[in-house]
């Protein structure tokens, strides 16, 4: 008998891999916003507007990942 058997959906593992890139991207966006706010606090409002759009576009990759994890995760299961 195998010492440890992992059962479940491989789609979730794929989603975990797919979330790496958007995680780094969202981190870079808000790191830049924090730096920009520290250098020029009065420009914060203008930066946040652009940052939310960038955040939404970057986050879309992770969101498509979780949708596909459910799509592919349930095809192979009984």
């Amino acid at each position: 008998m195998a010492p440890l058997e992992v059962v479940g959906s491989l789609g979730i593992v794929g989603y975990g891999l797919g979330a790496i890139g958007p995680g780094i991207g969202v981190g870079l966006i808000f790191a830049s916003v924090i730096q920009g706010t520290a250098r020029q606090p009065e420009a914060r409002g203008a930066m946040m507007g652009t940052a939310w759009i960038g955040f939404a576009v970057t986050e879309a990759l992770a969101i498509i990942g979780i949708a596909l994890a459910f799509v592919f995760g349930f095809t192979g299961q009984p």
Partner: protein
Amino acid sequence: MSAAFSSLVPLETGGGFEAPGVHNFDLPPLFDALPWFDKYILMAAVSVILVIVFWVVMARKNNLVPTKGQFIGETAYFFVRNGIARDMIGHDFRRYLPFLIALFSFILVNNLWGVFPLTLVPTASHVGWAYGLALMVWVLYNGVGIAKHGVGGYLKHSTLPSGVPKAMWPIIIPLEFFSNIIVRPMTLSLRLFANMFAGHLLVLVFVLGGDFLLLHTDSIVNKLAGVVAWIFSMAIFGLEIFVQALQAFIFTVLTANYIASAAAEEH
């Protein structure tokens, strides 16, 4: 080995726990006589009434010195007007302001059903609602572009950025068409849907898992873990309120952005 492992991980197979999944979102109809009338339709209808009543009441009595209620309405109005419409669309933003305000308040109320104690599921966690909203936005921004530039002019405007050399046209035109016409409504709807879906699923994992650990297992460690999971689900609800408001904001901002890019003049 197997018994020791399953006692360490009581939620795995053998314990009788059924993990939450897609089936938790297929709600039965409220009345047997009306098979199409489920909880989502009820929530959407109530939210339409709430939004209309809120804005009619806010628009009716305007004093020079605002009362508390008027202050709330004016803050919400100016948030969408100045923070979203004017920043994104520019000088011609007044034409699209009613649509943006209706869209923002409708999505916000529908998302907040996810933390309202009597409903506890956001409307857009069923994907059809997000598809409908995105289809409406898609028709609107393409219609705005066609009305402004004509059919051929709009296709050229949206698929060909200015200053691209002719050798690149066979690559750029299909790419831009794919990105601007096909992918935009898909990501717009999937973003709203998947955020609501994943958020509700997260709450379900903590609440149902905590319920199973506390009430259906014998070990004292599991019962303690169940209590911690229930307490932590309250923190997840707090995160959900933030995500729901943020997604309503982002949906409206992206809609304004698409309208602005479709109606933009050539530079």
